[in-house]
């Protein structure tokens, strides 16, 4: 457990969720549930797997983190705040007039690799980044975090075919399988059946884990990254939309609902226990 304690020190999930909550409240924004579901995935990536220098985010040796589900961007902002890339003002003045952080991932923000939010774009860009690394004989990897709703987009499957065809085993596709998309559950709207089997059918190596179990995520990523067999890597993370705040969990209203003073206070109380 000593290892576990050390492991959890940086990018504490509760602390990240609190940053998201603060941003969402100060900016009166939506997409809270969408950000909460990917907190542990990003925490594990930033803490243990992404190789980059926060002081040199454009380095040609960095790993790429492409948030293809750009509407979860507050979770990435929270990580970038943790790294010191974003300031307290960036968080506190979220959505203020003339500020730089938008409600969807934007390439002009330091640490953000692609402009997404229009779904189905990021994975192709990540495939291009992975191919560029391959052509330069660089050891860089490209991580792309996609939503399960985003898998409706045909371009996602174009990108998966491409990654398999070009044997991009330096790309890792992380699927946030929270079971919801904008207007309902994924099964109600556009059922994909088994996401794992879909990606396997496209010749990817796929593992599925609990997307809120950081040790499981870490182990799965280590395993996938260690197997350079030519197959693109996919980690299906089964998650809970709105994870971390009881009244938001699995309530799709928190795709769209804005915090008010009472819901903010109630959510903060649930996230306040481990305040650093």
């Amino acid at each position, binding site marked *: 457990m000593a290892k576990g304690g050390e492991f959890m020190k940086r990018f504490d999930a509760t602390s990240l969720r609190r940053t998201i909550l603060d941003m969402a409240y100060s900016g009166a924004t939506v997409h809270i549930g969408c950000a909460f579901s990917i907190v542990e995935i990003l925490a594990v990536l930033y803490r243990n797997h992404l190789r980059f220098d926060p002081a040199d985010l454009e380095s040609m040796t960095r790993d790429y983190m492409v948030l293809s589900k750009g509407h979860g961007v507050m979770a990435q902002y929270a990580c970038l705040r943790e790294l010191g890339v974003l300031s307290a003002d960036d968080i506190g003045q979220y959505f203020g007039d003339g500020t730089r952080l938008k409600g969807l991932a934007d390439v*002009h923000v330091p640490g953000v690799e692609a*402009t997404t939010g229009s779904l189905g774009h990021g994975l*192709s860009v990540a495939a*291009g*980044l992975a*191919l*560029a*690394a391959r*052509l330069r004989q660089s050891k860089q990897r490209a991580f792309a975090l996609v939503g399960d709703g985003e898998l409706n987009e045909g371009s996602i499957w174009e*990108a998966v075919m491409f990654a398999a065809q070009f044997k991009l085993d330096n790309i890792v596709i992380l699927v946030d399988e929270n079971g919801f998309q904008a207007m309902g559950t994924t099964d109600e709207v556009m059922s994909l059946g088994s996401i794992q089997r879909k990606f396997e059918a496209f010749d990817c190596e796929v593992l599925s884990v609990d997307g809120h179990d950081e040790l499981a995520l870490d182990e799965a990523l280590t395993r996938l990254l260690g197997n350079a067999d030519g197959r693109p890597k996919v980690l299906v993370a089964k998650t809970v939309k709105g994870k971390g705040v009881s009244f938001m969990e699995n309530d799709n209203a928190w795709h769209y609902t804005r915090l008010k003073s009472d819901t903010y206070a109630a959510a903060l109380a649930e996230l306040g226990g481990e305040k650093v």
Partner: protein
Amino acid sequence: MRNAFSDALMAAAKSDPRVLLLTGDHGYALFDAFRRECPAQYINCGIAEQNMVGVAAGLARGGFFPVVYGLAAFVPVRVMEQIKIDICYENLPVVLIGDGAGFVYSHLGNSHQSMEDIACARSLPALQVLSPGDRYEMSACMELAFRLRQPVYLRMGKSDRGDVHGGPVRLESGEMLCVRKATAGRALLATGSMLRTAIELIDEGLDAEIWSVPSIKPLNLETLQSIAQRHHSVFVLEEHSVLGGLGSCVSEVFASIPGAARVHRIGVEDRFSTYCGTYDYLLREHGLDGASIAQRIADPDMRKA
């Protein structure tokens, strides 16, 4: 003209290994030499244009200079949003080639004909739009496109209509090339395949100044102002819709020039092709053959029934 394109592409790829050719499974025969001589720089992305443009963006961000090749109906039109968000917003050095623009695929029907690509492309910030009219302009456009290191759309239309220039030309962004001088009166501004048509009209006795417009965006405003003020009528010729193409560009600029010439947009009216037929047949169907254009210039206010 197609040889000029593939020669320029090959020369660029040979001189810089960062130049990559991406194709959406198009370019049969056109890329034979490229595939033979630069195999590592040839990437067939399959019939998946959206992904191809996103991949190009990633490659550019990763240090490469991708050239994305497709038919104009698909690149840029089918993938406008990827071009806008993945490439233009980041101002990435990607050259997009739209081949077969206009009525080139006359027998295949409207899916493969492209009358709206200029209108689409020129609305995107950061994207320069080039449209060469002969092989010398093609070479100059390719040279410029690689020199710019920013997003470029290069429109390649009917390519076998013959030369206009007597030898190599050099092109800067926005530059218009005067091909036939006239003192005053009428000017013809033509782009792509219509440049050759304009020259043929002169050869048949029409008295007009002729400007080639290989750079549709940006446009050189000083040159346009001079044209607007020296002539009473300017005819814009393009194998593209009159909505949003070069004719629209010129009209927009002239609208704010005091005493500017009248602009007559000669292009494809706002409709699809009705029938199948040769390229020349379709030009006639749309009133873009030499005789129809001559008639229109002689009587600018006449409208086709």
